[in-house]
């Protein structure tokens, strides 16, 4: 497991930018690494009180079982679906060649 107390390096930011699909420029990466270290140093404070006995809360209100009936409702027209497309062909969105493979 990575050590959460370590500094965030330029290489880390590079990796994160890859995961987040942002083509950061070298200067930006360096700048961000500095800022992220500052921010993370500060927000690391949460660990002081996050003891194992405290449960996590992911939703502000504890609702459960909010389900939808299996009934067909509004659907977009093909024209609506494609209305904002940067590029399209034959009723589909067109993208340049893909390098990676499906997950």
């Amino acid at each position, binding site marked *: 497991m990575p050590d959460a107390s370590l500094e965030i390096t330029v290489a880390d930011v590079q990796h994160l930018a890859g995961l987040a699909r942002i083509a950061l420029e070298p200067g930006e990466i360096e700048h961000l690494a500095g800022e992220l270290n500052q921010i993370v140093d500060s927000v690391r404070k949460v660990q002081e009180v996050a003891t194992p006995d405290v449960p996590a809360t*992911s*939703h502000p209100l504890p609702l459960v079982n*909010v389900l939808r009936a*299996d009934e067909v409702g509004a659907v977009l027209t093909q024209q609506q*679906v494609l209305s904002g497309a940067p590029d399209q062909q034959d009723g589909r*969105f067109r993208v340049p*060649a893909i390098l990676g493979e499906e997950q």
Partner: protein
Amino acid sequence: MAGASTKDVLMDFDEALERFEPVLGFEVHVELSTATKMFSAAPNPAAPGADSTVPNSFVAPVDMGLPGALPLVNAEAVRYSISLGLALGCSIAPSSRFARKNYFYPDLGKNYQISQYDEPIAFEGSVEVELEDGTTWVVPIERAHMEEDAGKLTHVGGATGRIQGADHSLVDYNRAGVPLVEIVTKPIFGAEHRAPEIGKAYVATIRDIVRSLGISEARMERGNLRCDANVSLRPRGQERLGTRTETKNVNSLRSVERAVRYEIQRQAAILAAGGTIIQETRHWHEDTGTTSAGRPKSDADDYRYFPEPDLLPVEPSFALIEELRAALPESPVAFRKRLQADYGFTDAEFRDIVNAGVLAELEETVAKGAAPAQARKWWLGEILRIANARGVDAGTLVSPLHVSELIALVENGDLTDRLARQVLEGVIAGEGSPEAVVAARGLKVVSDDSALIAAIDTALASQPDVLQKIKDGKVQAAGAVIGAVMKAMRGQADAARVRELVLERAQS
């Protein structure tokens, strides 16, 4: 990387099994046949009868990740998932949750997949599968979880239609959001030389289960049921598991068997030569029966799962779970025992049907009105022969309804067996229903006696010596005339009737 590698060195299967122990694992994705998608009210392309051939016409805002759109959980999909979990012998989680699996890919409208991570709806079960020799094998189930399908990519330009070498790709989000249950097995130990068979039987059993539950069309050729096969080997005596590969999208029963066998032989050859197995996904090539290297597992597999904040936990009540449990159909194994008795098949007859993977088809054919013996004859005979010749599953060739119609035509005397085989060819070629093929090809048996009599009289007139022999009581001489008449009728006559008429005319 260029397509299928045919350069893999393979070790002989038996030798591989002597030196290594195979450990299997399967991930099967089942598309549920609910009316709507998992998280939107768009119609579900995997619903019975849905026609989603027009691209991007089955899309709600959330399916294509439009800003501001929100997901809503399909209650029916939850019920289907619980039923499936119960049929797999799983415990149903008192509280389960959706999570986001984050990765960028153009077929993923939001660039995250809503799935379940550490809190799946069903966990810890087992499935009994029947093997070819009639014995059963228990496959342990780790979990079954709900998630959504991705859209469909078409790769354009480039020779193979595959992603490599394509110039660009086109995205259709019709399939995005189709409800899926992913069933994950625990490692399967001890399969040994039966590993390929167990893989095939397991997937067939999952198919039978979801069909009997009525929660999926389970048509593998349409992608309703998709299998990823994990295979690893470890040297005899070693405790630690070997490195596994994950062969993706093995989408027919035959292919499951072949892919497992192939990976065992390939990995054994590498290990025996002192090499190491790379943890990677592999692609299955139906045409060559081989696998090729895909994406290695890497840092990029950091999916950054976290609880889906747009959705709330699913906490099925005890009453709901018990209601669904009570409604479960009998298990495929029990069901088969009952069916065999109903149909009056011997053990061997029935096993042949199961092993050919056409039980469900046969059952439906009988349900549509055919006699079990006739249904068995066609599915195990002509249809299976064509399927094997083409290397596909028999069920993909023709529908049970059409087979039952074909059988009815034979029973009514409209077709001879020989004609029926021609009609079947037409149906498989996509020419329509048996009736339509009969009409279009003009294959109906000529049952109009006057046409037959005319042909007989012509034949008798041209063979006066034969006519005399018949008149003299040498009935077997009629064969020559019958042959000539059948030829003249281009086979579209009932030979028995022709014989009757020949004898009648000869005496008159």
